[in-house]
């Protein structure tokens, strides 16, 4: 009996060894392990075995079956792997063929600059607020220390709707709305569209965007203004950006300044981009004029603050080296796609 089983096993293993396809292995399985297979036949012949030997024979048969199954299983796996590998070899593609894109759209460069600024100031605890584009003279001028006869009113070439209603020339008008709410301290930025009667050309547009900033609290200093805007410049233009503050004049701040940043193309050595100066003018700022605080019902003896205004287009033009402002309003897809 034992010899017979050994023989069956040897033959089965030989056939497994000789198989070159999965089907053939399956045949081996059927021939030896199947219901009508040779091992099953041996089991069926148990009735001829003496009862006391049956357990032993049974065990022998099972051992033989397990051994064949084990080898068969390994062979199947090996062959399956080989088949898969062969298939993979036929499926090679040219990975340099063009990508299938979703053709995602692009944000306007102004918006990219705006969102950068918002991210930076929100991170410093500022709230983003909005004010109206069509504005009362009071908010655009008078409450900002620019009374009726002030020359600055002429300088800004205002579009008027009526004697009292105009298109705001500066987002600074939002400062006043915010101060009038009477909630202190204030830390806000106000992005928005502004209007000035400039003919359209490469560097002018009758409509553009600004971001106004305003901080009012106890003990706010000019040093705080410098620190905050230096931080903003570093975040926006890079860690190595240096800033320079030059005295300037705005009716609604005193002292006032303009901020230059070190040229982000040449790092301040002087290049064509910064016209050899190494510095680029970026924004106007200053300590909120006490009269402006008074007009909006804030006691300048208790509170001080600073304000600043940045031109969004200016930042976008500088950051992306766009040489003609008209491109920002033409909406040519070949331009927009680049951002």
């Amino acid at each position: 009996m034992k010899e017979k089983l050994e023989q069956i096993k040897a033959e089965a293993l030989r056939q497994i060894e000789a198989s070159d396809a999965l089907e053939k292995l399956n045949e081996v399985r059927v021939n030896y392990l199947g219901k009508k297979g040779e091992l099953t036949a041996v089991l069926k012949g148990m009735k001829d075995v003496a009862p006391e030997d049956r357990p032993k024979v049974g065990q022998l048969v099972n051992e033989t079956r397990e051994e064949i199954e084990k080898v068969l299983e390994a062979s199947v796996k090996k062959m399956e792997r080989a088949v898969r590998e062969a298939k993979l070899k036929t499926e090679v593609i040219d990975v340099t063929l063009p990508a299938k894109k979703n053709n995602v759209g692009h944000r306007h460069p102004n918006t990219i600059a705006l969102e950068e600024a918002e991210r930076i100031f929100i991170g410093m605890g500022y709230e983003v607020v909005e004010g109206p584009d069509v504005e009362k003279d009071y908010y655009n001028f008078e409450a900002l220390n620019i009374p009726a006869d002030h020359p600055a009113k002429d300088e800004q070439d205002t579009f008027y709707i009526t004697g009292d209603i105009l298109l705001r020339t500066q987002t600074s008008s939002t400062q006043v709305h915010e101060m009038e709410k009477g909630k202190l301290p204030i830390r806000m930025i106000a992005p928005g569209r502004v209007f000035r009667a400039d003919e359209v050309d490469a560097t002018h547009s009758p409509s553009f965007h600004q971001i106004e900033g305003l901080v009012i609290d106890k003990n706010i200093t000019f040093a705080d203004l410098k620190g905050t805007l230096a931080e903003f410049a570093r975040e926006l233009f890079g860690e190595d950006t240096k800033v320079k503050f030059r005295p300037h004049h705005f009716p609604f701040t005193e002292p006032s300044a303009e901020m230059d940043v070190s040229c982000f193309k040449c790092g301040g050595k002087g290049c064509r981009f910064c016209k050899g100066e190494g510095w680029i003018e970026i924004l106007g700022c200053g300590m909120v004029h006490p009269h402006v605080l008074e007009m909006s019902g804030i006691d300048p003896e208790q509170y001080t603050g600073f304000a600043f205004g940045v031109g969004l287009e200016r930042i976008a033009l500088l950051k992306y080296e766009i040489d003609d402002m008209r491109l920002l309003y033409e909406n040519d897809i070949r331009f927009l796609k680049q951002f």
Partner: protein
Amino acid sequence: MNTALSWIKAYVPDLTCTDQEYMDAMTLTGTKVEGYTRLDKNLEKIVVGQIQKIEKHPDADKLIVCQVDIGKEVIQIVTGAPNVKEGDKVPVVLDGGKVAGGHDGGPLPEDGIKIKAGKLRGVPSNGMMCSIEELGSDRNFYPEAPEMGIYIFGDDAVVGSDAVEALGLHDTVFEYEITSNRVDCYSVIGIAREAAATFRKPFVLPEVTVKGNGENVEDYISVEVQDQELCPRYCARVCKNIKIGPSPKWMQRRLAASGIRPINNLVDITNYVMEEYGQPMHAYDLDTIAGHKIIVRRAKDGDVFRTLDGQDRKLDKDVLMICDAEKEVGLAGIMGGENSMITDHVNTVLFEAATFNGANIRKSAKRVGLRTDASGKFEKGLDPNSAEAAINRACQLIEEFGCGEVVSGMVDICGEMKEKVVLPFEPERYNKLLGTDVSEQEMLEIFKMLEVEYDAQKRTLTAPTFRQDLLRQCDIAEEVARFYGYDKIPTTLPTGEATTGKLPFKLRIEQKARDIAEYCGFSQGMCYSFESPKVFDKLLLAANDPARKAITIANPLGEDFSIMRTLSLNGMLTSLATNYNRRNKDVRLYELGNIYLPKALPLTELPEERMQFTLGMYGDCDFFDMKGVVEEFLESVGMQMHKRGAYDPKAGRNYLHPGRQANILYGDEVIGYLGEVHPEVCDNYDLKTRAYVAVIDIPAILPHATFDRKYEGIAKYPAVLRDISMVVPKAVMAGQIEAVIAQRGGKILEDYKLFDIYEGNQIKEGFKSMAYSITFRAKDRTLEEADVAGAMKKILNGLEGMGIELRS
């Protein structure tokens, strides 16, 4: 404002610095230098030479051969210049030297022109005699230079000396940008005072003394100011026996460097004083002044006056005039009259130095349409004290130049002078505002340089009258900051109560709109807020369409920018057309921008500003692509479009295709619209393709939008699917069918989806074939056949009621 550095140094004699140092330092104390030009740029090895002998060139008719004494030696120079003669002193460029430009006066080459010894038609020439143009200037600034030819020096020029020096060209002209608050700095003295303070050097004002001839000015002229408010001060002096001639070279050079052409001594003196003190002056021919009387009064409406440029100017009662006993002789502060103009034959001159109301001058100049150097200075509001200083300075110069006799005394009509501003000296306040620790002593040093007086006993500061910008403590703090140095102020961050950074809900919704639009392939455009009233016709709006009620700008840049938009479509269609006509394929754009809806016209209160999310596209796309974008967005801001959204094809929008448009409804509310652009509108925009637009009114969706989400358990029990196939009358819309399914499907209805729609051959006329797949599912159990059958029966009954036939 342009000024030669040598002029500044006349008042700050100890000033020594390079041009770049000067520019940087002045800019950092607030007198912004825009740039500078070296007048001796590219002028090298140029000396004063004297022509000893002139001979004809042996081989050229138009050339001459000159022997020129250049001090150490005599050199031979061949020239074609027609104007030189023996004995003339001329600028000579030596071999290896440089000149700035060519003799034709064209644009100056960046590196100048090198001059080398050589031969002209065979005769050696060892240098070049130059014209004023070759020296980089022109006859406007050197009126004595000949029209064509070599510049010839006066007798006082020293042979062999530096010719550039002799011409006053070793100098640098700085261009300043003066801020509007610093009226005092629109003058050389004002800038010099800043320069002295910046470099901490002594400031030396010119000493002004007028001898006078002993006569009394009141015998020559009387002055009456009828409107003191518009003319706070009027000073008049008289000079007689005027001899018109050229002014001294140094004065001509200084004026030329400032961009003012020298004319004659009298004109040059008034211009010089205007530059020096920032105080405009006017000179009248006293013999033309009727009654020898000046009256300062307002004009009458409708008066016409001829200014000295020969133009007739229309006046009104707010224009201030200078008049004599009979007539108007000058437009106060703006320009004199032709009738009292100085001519070369003038004998007696009346000088006027006055202070006029700045705002009035500014408005008058605007209305009259004439802005001059003088009006530009007056409109800033001058210090009444400078009128007196300037008129005396002018008379002093008349005496110095010997070009006239000054009548003693001054007529001075002066209202009450403004009181000087006195402020308590509060050093700790300035430091607290600046965040600095500047010592009291340093502050006082700064004030001293700026002529802010300090009273140590009262501890007060008094601002000088020329500093009209020093009114409050913050103004004083700025002075401390400027001269302590903005760069030395520390950098800190605000302390105090912490605040939370916030982006308001509306802006978050807009951010989402940008994200979704871009995800769907739309790029962001930006359009102007103002446009042409013609857009209403281009968009085929009905005559009574409320959108035609637009706000008009009173002073627009032109009709094309004259109304505030009430619809966002024009900008979008214009942008699409721009792209189309530039042959850009498959363009998708979006815009987030306001429209402006007046509550009443003319405007009495601010209009409503409504943010519009506008999408537009053409190319490989259709109505349903656009509808998809709309729903992607609305669902992304938490709106339940499948439950509450609807599309009403009767949108009544003339600019859209009548059969391909819809209002977007949420509940019963219109929150926007979409559709294919009407072909006639496309034609009007020169857009020769089908285009699709959608507009979502952001304020309308704000009450419904939310970023809150609630998790609903993922279904545990199996779904049952039923397909229905129908023949539907064409007029029945998918929306109606879906409404029936939604209403009648009951609680177990999970979803439904149109999976086939067909019109054509196999379907009978007037019908279409539609097929829906409907999903049922219960949350708490496996559905029984009976549940589904019941629901389906209700649905089918409903559909049959609409004339729909079921296909087996």
